């Protein structure tokens, strides 16, 4: 996920050193905050959808400031689509796994047969795993929709 800064700077017609420096400093902190919102869904307002949108917004900020090809070097198209599918499969996979082990669909307490913790604790951990899947899916779909609409389909040159 590295960006070649010299090439990115030469590709944009109107470069502004303040914008580029500020965005490069801000993006790691925005991503850390997005991860915080996902993980703290149990104890404060937050959860999967909210944190996923904040994470997606950080990549869209990079695309707005350094040009669309730079954000495509940061998060390649292949990684983007693979992460979207993995996020949806985590959710459905856990649900089907619960059904295969003998309980009902999405009944997290029968996962005690795999890892012997207290069934009530498994419900709390099951909710957390499912929110991670949701967060991954939402982040990549937001970035994908932005790429398609800002370049009108061709993904070579943004706004």
């Amino acid at each position, binding site marked *: 996920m590295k960006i070649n800064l010299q090439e990115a700077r030469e590709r944009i017609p109107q470069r502004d050193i303040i914008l580029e420096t500020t965005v490069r400093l801000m993006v790691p902190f925005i991503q850390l905050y997005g991860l915080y919102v996902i993980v703290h869904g149990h104890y404060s307002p937050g*959860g999967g959808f909210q944190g996923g949108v904040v994470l997606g917004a950080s990549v869209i900020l990079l695309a707005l400031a350094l040009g669309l090809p730079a954000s495509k070097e940061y998060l390649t198209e292949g990684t983007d689509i693979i992460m*979207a599918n993995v996020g949806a499969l985590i959710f459905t996979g856990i649900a089907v796994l619960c059904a295969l082990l003998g309980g009902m669909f*999405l009944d997290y307490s029968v996962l005690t047969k795999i890892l012997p913790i207290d069934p009530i604790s498994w419900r*709390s951990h*099951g*909710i957390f795993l499912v929110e991670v899947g949701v967060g991954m899916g939402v982040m990549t*779909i937001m970035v*994908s929709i932005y790429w398609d609409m800002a370049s*009108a389909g061709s993904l070579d040159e943004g706004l």
Partner: protein
Amino acid sequence: MKPLALLATLITGALLLYGTADFAAWGDPQSPPNSNISVRFIEEAVKETHVPNIVTAVLGDYRGYDTMFELVVIYCAGMAVMGVLRRREDQ
């Protein structure tokens, strides 16, 4: 066209305002939405799932099916935008 739309809007608005006469008062603890199953959720959710945030507990555990299909909806929206907007190289 515009006066007809305005008339339809005003008639619909009047009917909806007439329909709010049956609603419970704002902030009533005994209104019908507040008294059937959400009483059980508020009292039992922390004991059964050890999650202090009742909204996350209901969203992830008691109503997990809805959350799964919501993720599928947003995935299908991403695929639909890709399918509508991308062009093949020969077009």
